């Protein structure tokens, strides 16, 4: 019989406010095996932990039940406390009487009754607990960063700086991401390329970093410390090692009508292209959707003009399999499609643009070489209307994204300010619902746009944009003066909501990392573990986790790197001891468990068994590799003979809990 101690936490008034903690402790004292039961204000405090430690020693406890907050919060704290005084940490069970009891019930009697039952279930389980020892697994000292935008680059640089190998997988032909398309950054107005491109070059030159550009992650296997990843290197039909990036092919290619995605389709590139002048790697790529040679077999101009002989029309996708100790997701974002918001006439007039398109129109390397010209007739726009929150802060579903995209207020202030600075004869209107500028020097920046640059900020929304006679007739509300405004604009700029990149969802499935309903990756804890995914060994960097601006992205990128470095610095990781094990006496070798195991942790071996009359029989039995098993328990249910069981969540333990609850 176990000697069990019960510790009921008040959690200040969080639990004690709705649960009669005294009564719980007193009632549970009467349970079989309970030799000690008490309550205390904060069990997780040092004094609380000492109380547990002292009681273990004093009463010679063999099992501990803590009635407190969720085990997801403090199970480890209490296990460590028990371990420090010599009790096996897996002899500690937590009954969740805060999140699943005191916080959801208002009536004291009901909550107390439920707390007692939850306590009983935990006691019933502890009776059947057995000491467990965790195994160890090695750590592969290399990290993978998925996504080569500013987030991925920063994370990779920091990890490499600490002396670890790191690979970047980027799906487009160059790293740089969205920041490479941005003209200036707020609130300092320094040129984005000037601060980004040195980092891109640094990443390319850093010996510890390998960049797989134009590549995608195809498959992820394994677990923290030992992921095995299959990377698809898409055929770019150019030998990356030979190409010098001279760009002659991109000038000679006869296929001139390919929408240039770097300028968001506002101008054209060739079928063989280098996305932009500072691309890293500076290597040409053939777009198979437009290349005449690849489509019809007739052309070959690029091959003829290439002095380095780098063109290879026969190139196929290649696969790289590599091992990593940690994976960082930095898949970034995109502006949403504006199809659903055609009251703003985005699809009806080229002069209605998104903010990112406006960014290109302002940029020296953009389609208009940095002169602000409206796309329809290449004249200087004299009146520009900016519309905020297009698709952000909506009611969800069909209406749009329910979240605030966070960066639009600031970049719109930036656009408005830059426009007024370069072209003082331009009238600039910004329609806003709220101006959200929490950030260092952010509100000052917005105020400058209003006070120094004379941007017209109007509280209200645009309801309809009508392209007519070369103008955009904007119908909008001014809520403060309770008027409907009619503005004849030359351009309308829409601050489209941002959304996670479409590749994030399939990637999350591969990584078994969870996502929220908007396809942003969820963090392990919203406040205390913001850069880790709940899946061990997977870390989050940048917009893939939620909307953020460049400084925030960079901080998160570095934070993710720090977490990765902390992981890679370890030689071995302690495994989860709650793994499956098979009772060889019961196993009939049917292979049911092997088939359901997602990790291939189960193998079969022939084993000799002593039989009656000193005979020996050889039987085929399952054996679980505890370093590979992740403890899901799928095999335990598949096993027809009841040989397979799971440490820490055994059949008997769970049934004891069921019994205690149903009693």
């Amino acid at each position, binding site marked *: 019989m176990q000697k069990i101690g019960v510790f009921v936490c008040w959690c200040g008034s969080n639990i004690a406010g709705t649960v009669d903690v005294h009564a719980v402790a007193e009632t549970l004292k009467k349970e079989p095996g309970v030799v000690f039961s008490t309550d205390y204000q904060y069990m997780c405090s040092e004094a609380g932990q000492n109380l547990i430690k002292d009681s273990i020693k004093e009463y010679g406890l063999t099992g501990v039940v803590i009635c407190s907050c969720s085990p997801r919060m403090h199970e480890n704290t209490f296990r460590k406390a028990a371990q420090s005084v010599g009790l096996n940490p897996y002899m500690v069970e937590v009954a969740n009487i805060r999140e699943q009891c005191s916080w959801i019930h208002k009536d004291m009697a009901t909550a107390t009754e439920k707390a007692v039952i939850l306590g009983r279930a935990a006691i019933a389980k502890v009776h059947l607990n057995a000491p467990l020892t965790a195994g160890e697994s090695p750590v592969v000292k290399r990290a993978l960063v998925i996504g080569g935008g500013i987030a991925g680059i920063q994370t990779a640089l920091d990890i490499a700086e600490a002396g670890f190998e790191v690979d970047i997988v980027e799906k487009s032909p160059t790293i740089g991401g969205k920041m490479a398309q941005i003209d200036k950054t707020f609130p300092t107005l320094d040129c984005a390329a000037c601060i980004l491109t040195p980092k891109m070059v640094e990443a390319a030159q850093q010996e510890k970093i390998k960049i797989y550009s134009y590549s995608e992650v195809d498959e992820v296997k394994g677990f923290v410390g030992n992921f095995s990843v299959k990377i698809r290197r898409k055929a770019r039909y150019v030998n990356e090692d030979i190409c010098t990036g001279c760009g002659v092919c991109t000038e000679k290619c006869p296929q001139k009508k390919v929408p240039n995605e770097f300028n968001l389709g506002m101008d054209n590139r060739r079928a063989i292209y280098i996305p932009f002048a500072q691309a890293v790697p500076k290597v040409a790529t053939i777009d198979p959707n437009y290349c005449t040679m690849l489509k019809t077999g007739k052309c070959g101009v690029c091959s003829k003009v290439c002095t380095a002989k780098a063109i290879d029309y026969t190139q196929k996708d290649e696969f790289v399999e590599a091992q990593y100790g940690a994976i960082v997701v930095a898949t970034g974002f995109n502006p949403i499609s504006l199809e659903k918001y055609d*009251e703003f006439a985005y699809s009806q007039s080229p002069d209605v643009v998104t903010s990112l398109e406006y960014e290109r129109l302002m940029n020296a390397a953009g389609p208009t070489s940095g002169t602000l010209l409206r796309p329809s007739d290449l004249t200087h726009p004299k009146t520009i209307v900016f519309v905020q*929150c297009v698709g952000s*802060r*909506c*009611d969800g579903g069909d*209406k*749009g994204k329910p979240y605030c995209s966070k960066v639009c207020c600031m970049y719109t202030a930036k656009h408005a300010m830059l426009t007024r600075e370069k072209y003082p004869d331009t009238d600039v209107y910004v329609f806003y*619902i709220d101006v959200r500028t929490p950030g260092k020097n952010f509100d000052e920046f917005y105020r400058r746009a209003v006070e120094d640059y004379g941007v017209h900020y109007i*509280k*209200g*929304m*645009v*309801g*309809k944009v009508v392209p007519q006679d070369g103008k955009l007739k904007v*119908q*909008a*509300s001014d*809520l403060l003066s*309770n008027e*409907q405004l009619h503005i004849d604009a030359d351009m309308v700029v829409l601050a489209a909501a941002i959304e996670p990149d479409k590749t994030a969802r399939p990637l999350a499935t591969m990584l078994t990392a969870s996502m929220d309903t908007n396809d942003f990756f969820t963090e392990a804890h919203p406040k205390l573990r913001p850069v880790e995914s709940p899946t061990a060994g997977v870390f989050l960097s940048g917009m893939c986790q939620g909307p953020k601006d460049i400084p925030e992205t960079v901080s998160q990128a570095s934070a993710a790197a720090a977490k990765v470095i902390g992981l890679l610095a370890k030689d071995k990781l302690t495994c989860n001891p709650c793994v499956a094990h098979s009772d060889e006496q019961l196993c009939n070798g049917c292979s049911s468990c092997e088939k359901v195991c997602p990790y291939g942790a189960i193998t079969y071996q022939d084993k000799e068994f002593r039989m009656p009359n000193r005979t020996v029989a050889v039987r085929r039995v399952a054996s679980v590799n505890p370093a590979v098993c992740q403890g899901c328990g799928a095999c335990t249910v598949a096993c027809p003979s009841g040989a397979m069981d799971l440490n820490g969540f055994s059949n008997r333990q769970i049934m004891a809990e069921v019994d205690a609850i149903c009693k």
Partner: protein
Amino acid sequence: MENKQQLTEQILRMSGVNARKCMRCGKCTATCPSFDEMEYHPHQFVYMVEKGDIEPLMKSESLYTCLTCFACVERCPRNVEPAKLVEAVRLAVIREQGANHLKPQDLPELWDEDLPQQAIVSAFRKYSK
């Protein structure tokens, strides 16, 4: 005061609108084709119903200039449906005895030989009980 609350609840029930969802962007008012003819504009309807100020709305001519074109309903980012509130307030008025906005005897004056039946039927449904 109690009456005011009852009236508000009645309006919300009839319209099926949750006025609290409004984030005060003003897109309804921005898109309203009848803006110039309205004393209270769509966003004000939402705000005033939320506050419980129904009576001024009931007295307002704005009730009869709403075209029920549903532009505000379609374009509201928050699914608030201002036109349904206008309709509910209008109904609350014409359901009161003798409060019909349009009476049959008014018709000949408004008549026009090309006017489709549809307009008359609609107007009666909108303006009287």
